[in-house]
């Protein structure tokens, strides 16, 4: 894969990728973009091994998810509280901002796999098969994670 083609694919995928990582990082936009950059570098270095057996987006999201997991395993330096994340994600104190705050606070309480499954299914409109490939887990496990994630979110989000 040439650099130009890689950039073209990345241009198409940058917004979904950043949104996925933003959800995983519970609204911390700066951290999400940092992990996205890291994922793009890793993807570029490994782009010679991309054979096109899966969609480019599936491959890229898998790398991004692995980068996020690596980040979670690192010793924590500075935690950005979810309230601060709200100000990063949205400046005004509108109803929308309140819902984002609720969403990010609820997502922050979910285990990583549930959070990733929820983000991919509801925010990125990926199907179960794609999520299974991205998170490297069987389709039945994805459905279980989604079900558990919904139940956990219901406990933390007031509708």
């Amino acid at each position, binding site marked *: 894969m040439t650099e130009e083609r890689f*950039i073209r694919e990345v241009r198409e995928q940058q*917004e979904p990728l950043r949104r996925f990582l*933003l959800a995983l990082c519970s609204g911390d936009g700066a951290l999400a973009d940092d992990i996205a950059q890291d994922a793009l*570098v890793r993807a570029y270095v490994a782009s*010679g*091994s991309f054979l096109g057996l899966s969609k480019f987006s599936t491959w890229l999201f898998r790398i991004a998810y692995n980068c996020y997991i690596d980040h979670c395993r690192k010793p924590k330096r500075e935690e950005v509280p979810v309230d601060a994340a709200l100000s990063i*994600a949205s400046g005004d104190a509108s109803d*929308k901002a309140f819902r984002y705050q609720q969403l990010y606070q609820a997502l922050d309480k979910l285990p990583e796999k549930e959070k990733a499954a929820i983000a991919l299914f*509801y925010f990125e409109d990926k199907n179960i098969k794609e999520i299974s490939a991205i998170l490297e887990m069987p389709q039945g496990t994805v459905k279980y994670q989604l079900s558990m994630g919904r139940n956990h979110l*219901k406990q933390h989000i007031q509708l």
Partner: protein
Amino acid sequence: MKEIEDFLRENKPAVKNNPTFILEARRRMEAVEGIKAEVDRQHKRGRVALIIALVAGLVVGVVATAIAFLYPVDPQSVGEGVWQSVRLFLQNYRQYLLLPVAVLAMLLALVLSRKGVLAS
């Protein structure tokens, strides 16, 4: 449960516009160009080694099958005990004993080339 699903679909996280994102990505990609070239070289070497191994396996398989057909072993000898069979086998095929040695040497060369021992 429908309510929570609607809430999630209606409140997708909003990504802030970042015009420097791609520029920064390009800058980082240029910085790792050397690493990418080395990784690509290793992939290529791995593919060549795989093809060589496949061809070698095919050739050895064909040769072994041909030998089995050209020099069949007497079935009676099988019943005469393991050591007798081994002795007969060595008698029948002593001229081909170098074949497995050559195969092992090829395999060793492949493994070493994949690890970069021969290239360095």
